[in-house]
């Protein structure tokens, strides 16, 4: 298989950066565009979203080649820190959630 389909969800206000649409199906090459010998990683998905799905306010999503502080990343309902974070190797039909931490009350 040369493409992966990733189910991406934006939540906690992140969806406002994406026309208020929470769920997206994203098709990505199965190999990393940064290094074609490697499988696609979470890093590639984040760059793909930044470069292909955003025209402005990119700094509200990405900062210093990772998500900005205040965004939690969830890989199949698990905190990405438990799954190699940016180096996580994407699998077909993975569900990735980007959630903005809320502070209101």
């Amino acid at each position: 298989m040369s493409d992966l389909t990733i189910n991406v969800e934006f939540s906690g206000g992140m969806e406002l950066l994406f026309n208020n649409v929470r769920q997206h199906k994203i098709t990505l090459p199965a190999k990393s565009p940064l290094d074609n010998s490697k499988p696609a990683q979470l890093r590639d998905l984040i760059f793909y979203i930044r470069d292909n799905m955003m025209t402005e306010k990119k700094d509200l999503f990405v900062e210093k080649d990772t998500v900005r502080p205040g965004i939690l990343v969830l890989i199949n309902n698990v905190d990405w820190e438990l799954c190699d974070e940016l180096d996580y190797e994407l699998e077909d039909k993975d569900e990735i959630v980007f959630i903005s931490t809320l502070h209101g009350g």
Partner: protein
Amino acid sequence: LFEKQNQLNNEEIRRFGRQLILPEFGPEGQLKLRNSSILVVGAGGLGAPAILYLGAGGIGKLGIVDHDDVDISNLHRQVIHKERTQGMNKAVSAMLAVHEIHPQCHVTPYPILLDSSNALSLIKQYDVVLDATDNVATRYLLNDACVLAGKPLVSGSALRMDGQLTVYNHNGGPCYRCIHPVPPPPETVTNCSDGGVLGVIPGVIGILQALEAIKIVAGLTENQTSHSFLIFNGCYSPMFRSIKLRGKKENCLVCGENPTITELIDYVEFCGSGATDKEASLFVL
């Protein structure tokens, strides 16, 4: 004066009968609530239902911190306050509401702004702390104070149709800094005054904060091994999602193995915004 008791009195047995007959709770669980103290920071949208259910449910001692006064625009979601308590300090207004239901609950209102000078001494007097506040600086302040005082922190937040719930610094789990070592850029932070909120949303999260606090003081979380983060959206399906959260981080600046934060710092400076900033954020996020 709040004093621990060895057994429930007859009035408590009548009042809490439905909880006493629960096999997993029973008179032992109720007595633990009776002998527990919980500090609720914020008597707003989250604090309102949390305080009501903690007070009505039998927590012996409640502290309520809020420096703000009741305003008409609070009443759609802060259901512990009333038209007649408009203009009254929220901590005092909340105390009156608890006493209408359960006069024997020992409530102490603190009509103050929590900061680095007063947080630690206050938190040390309570068993569990609820973060029902509405700004980043106070969330870091409460986290660090709870770690330094060794108290579990039940943290809730709500905005628009979204809510989030986590228990920090409990059963070997992470603290707020383990998850969020760096504060968010101030322009990405919105409070309910600016972003709006549907009233029931903080209601749901606040009442779940009461549940988590009750479970902790009743000893129902003792066998808990993993730590989770609850995400809620009122208009989405599924409404709730439980996320498996990382554990405590060895290199956490406050709860890690070699902490560098050993006393409270300046949280307004650290976050670039304070507890009373009312100006609108640049971007609504």
